């Protein structure tokens, strides 16, 4: 029995390399423009196989894919619109900061935090 599991080493990823990555939208995400000009994202949520099997057994029907909705605010929508798969994170920060006349550090913090949040939900991926 392994008592002390060796911790897996995470690959080293420099800050500069991270900022040069290009965020790409997940093709399964469906976006709707609301009247306010903000964006509503609808995205599928994966279920664990055993959960799907349980649902199938008890309901007797094949489970429909579960979707979730996420409404972005004005700033979130502005960042989302800048994600075209060609711009790097650094370029997105620069353009976002320019359009709202934000301090570069402030823009960087808010954009990276927002992209991290989108990444965790699987709404975007990053390519080098």
């Amino acid at each position: 029995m392994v008592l002390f599991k060796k911790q897996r080493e995470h690959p080293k990823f420099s800050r500069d390399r991270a900022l040069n990555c290009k965020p790409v939208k997940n093709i399964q995400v469906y976006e709707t423009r609301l009247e306010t000009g903000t964006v509503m994202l609808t995205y599928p949520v994966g279920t664990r196989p055993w959960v799907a099997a349980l649902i199938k057994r008890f309901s007797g029907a094949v489970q429909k894919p579960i979707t979730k909705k996420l409404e972005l605010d004005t700033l979130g929508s502005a960042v989302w619109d800048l994600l075209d798969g060609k711009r790097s994170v650094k370029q997105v920060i620069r353009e976002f900061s320019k359009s709202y006349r934000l301090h570069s550090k402030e823009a960087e913090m808010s954009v990276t935090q927002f992209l991290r949040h989108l990444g965790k939900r699987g709404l975007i991926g990053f390519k080098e």
Partner: protein
Amino acid sequence: MTLNNEQSWKEVGWNGIRLSIPSAWEAGRIAERYLLLESDDFPVLELKWKSIKGKFSTEKHLKRFKSDYHKQLAGHEISPWAVPKNWCDALQSHEMTGFQWEGRLFAGKGLILFCKDCRCATLLQFYERRDNEKDRLNRIHQGEILSSFHDHSANGLYLWSVFDIRTILPEHFKLFRHSFSPGAFELTFDTGIYRISFYRWSPASVILLESDLQGFAEKVFPFKSCRPVSGFSGSVETMELESFPPLSFWRKWRRKLRKQPIFKWARVWHVSNANRILAVKAESDKPMDFELLDSICSEYGLI
């Protein structure tokens, strides 16, 4: 400001310390008596300071510095360093000791300074990435930066200037609280009589989409039974809120015991060309001095 023709400069002021730095440098970490300045997100200059009671000892400070930076130095030694002439000339009024160290990624050259006039000890060090040409080029600015260094003010007025906000305050305004979150900055000072807070919000164009300036002022300063009043400070339109509730003797004492201020005042204004909203809030147990508040508001602005 121009010290060197090719380089644009800006002033940084924080809790008694004031110096000029290249405009590309930015505060990376801020604490009550600590500043880490960065260029391209890498540290370039670090300052740590405290006032000394009793006898000042360089050795004691170096020892403390070694223990603080134990991890960063990774076993490397701090060695004494002969301070160059331009550095000595720049800081003539200070006692100084030079030191240097080399770590795995960075190397540092610094000074432990002591000012006899204000009895302030400062640890100041320039960082340099090993094998980075740009950092080596920064060396040419070091003399100019040091010559602009001040740890006390002759007229008792102190500059507070970080990121894009700037104000000048008298010495007795002591920093009580500070926070720099994306979109919202706050600096709060305590004078013993007043508690004065400075705010900066951005981007104003987005904040003011939901409500106008009056609505925003009401939301951020929810004073009881008080409506914002529109006014002018120079040519800038402002929203002012005042809360001076007529309290009974016992209610006044209850507030005092709970440390709740009786008098509250705030002014909010929109700097449209910079897309920012600025505000000053004052709280006190004593009636407000509006002349003082006016002068505080006029000194507060954007860089």
